[in-house]
């Protein structure tokens, strides 16, 4: 399912008291890919993703989710199918867990969308297993779990509704390096199983490691929307203008280029960077005992 944003403006408030947030946005969120949305705090990222499942409706222009068109005039009752197709995982989603057991918490969404007890239980179990959650803990209170486990339960809660597209706002925030790596792998697995993933992230390393496409927001407008390699091939000065950091690997590569080293492609990992650098170093300059 493709999501198209066409000539979208959005302002909070009504009448004379409006605060424009998004201006003339034209974007395509491609099916089966991971699209990262990046930009400084206040650039409009969160407001933009809320258009994707009609939590917010455009002030002007339209959002086309699959077959369905959302404009400022679309009635609330027509939005339910869109909410079912596009699932939202907000920041620190574990703060919204509430049920007495893990299983009941995950079943809540499907039940709310009209599933029977049996269907909801099956959907919940499938979702919990997809996020790698230990079956032995299904009857536990979600509040007795570790932070990483709680986050998985919250993700499963959205996944259980089987949305075609899932939107994540800083999904790995606050987790330790091992927890972050597991979560990022989970997003890749979801994409590889056919889901469309939209990811808001401040962590450029994550964007580099995960994203197929990247949308850069600045002052409520799209500053760039392109493949991840194209984006990170832009000069360092461009990222400074957007107040964005570069991933460490890319920043290092650009520094080395400035020092006269050459690379035949953008290195996405330290290992790749090292492999491209190795042939350009003369280790005999170190003297005998420094190198292997």
């Amino acid at each position, binding site marked *: 399912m493709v999501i198209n944003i066409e000539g979208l403006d959005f302002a909070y408030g009504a009448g004379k008291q409006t605060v424009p947030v998004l201006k003339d946005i034209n974007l395509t969120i491609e099916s089966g890919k991971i699209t990262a949305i990046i930009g*400084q*705090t206040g650039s409009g990222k969160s407001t933009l993703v809320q258009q994707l499942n009609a939590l917010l409706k455009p002030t002007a222009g339209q959002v086309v989710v699959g077959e369905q068109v959302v404009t400022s005039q679309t009635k609330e009752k027509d939005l339910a199918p869109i909410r079912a197709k596009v699932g939202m995982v907000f920041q*620190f989603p574990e703060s919204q867990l509430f049920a007495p057991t893990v299983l009941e918490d995950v079943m809540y969404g499907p039940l709310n969308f009209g599933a029977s007890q049996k269907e909801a239980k099956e959907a919940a179990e499938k979702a919990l297993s997809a996020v790698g959650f230990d079956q032995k803990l299904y009857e536990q209170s979600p509040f*007795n779990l*570790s*932070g*990483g486990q709680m986050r998985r339960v919250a993700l499963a809660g959205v996944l259980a509704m089987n949305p075609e597209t899932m939107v994540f706002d800083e999904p790995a*925030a*606050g*987790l*330790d*390096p*091992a*927890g972050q790596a597991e979560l990022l792998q989970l997003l890749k697995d979801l994409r590889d199983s056919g889901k469309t993933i939209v990811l808001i992230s*401040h962590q450029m390393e994550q964007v580099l490691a995960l994203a197929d496409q990247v949308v850069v927001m600045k002052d409520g407008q799209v500053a760039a929307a392109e493949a991840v390699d194209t984006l990170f091939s832009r000069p360092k000065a461009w990222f400074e203008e957007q*107040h964005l*950091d570069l991933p*460490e*690997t890319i*920043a*290092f590569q650009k*520094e*080395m280029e400035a*020092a*006269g*080293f050459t690379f035949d492609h953008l290195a996405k990992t*330290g*290992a790749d*960077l*090292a492999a491209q*650098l*190795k*042939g*350009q*170093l*003369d*280790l005999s*300059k*170190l003297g005998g005992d*420094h*190198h*292997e």
Partner: protein
Amino acid sequence: MTDAITIKNLTYSYPEQGGLFQDFSLSVKEGEWLAIVGHNGSGKSTLAKLILGLLDFEEGRIKVFDQVLSEQTLAAVRSTVGMVFQNPDNQFVGATVADDVAFGLENRQIPSLEMPAKIEKALKQVGMNAYADREPHTLSGGQKQRVAMASVLALEPKVIILDEATAMLDPEGKQAVLQNLKELKARYQDELTLIMITHDMEEAAMADRVAVIDDGKLIFDEKPETLFLKGERLRELGLTQPFAMALREQLGIQNPAYQTTQELVAWLSTLKA
């Protein structure tokens, strides 16, 4: 130099999950900046709660300057040690930023005439004085954490513990908080002891010394420069190595010295074939 915090032969078990610290000892010198690192569940935050007397331990002794932590010294210990927590949204009670800082002072029964000056001084130290009348919920995450820090600073603690205080912030907010910490340390020097609990190695690099904790055990206790050379061991512990050090390992070049990214770029440039 005196010890600000001395933990000796501490034994503590989680109420349900069981043993964590067993005969654990660690001390922090007055004026030192210590980072405590470890993966989630390693026990690092529990240690902070034990120091503040928020949890009871079974055996051992915790000393804060010359006070041995006990029910009788709890109030004195808490006025010596301030703590900033992880979640910027869970630390506010006041209707405005200034009220929030005032809350801690009221709890200490500071005369109300002395309060405005203390509040202003504390907010100035974190660069938030212009926001004194703002409602806390209108602030960004980084600003909230700086106000939380001001609330702690207003009480003039000798020790500040930051428990993953930047983990929930965006890069800009994080840099603002870290920059602020550097300034505070430069201003107070040996009068302020900082304990930073984190799993972020960029933060750990700011400290004088890093204690690495895993399952309640002290695995390393050394300067960041030497710790960062131990790439494989750090990865085994669920931690990362600063980028430049990891890259140097991948290049297969041995160099006993720690290098920052800039230093490594400059050094590699001299080796260009």
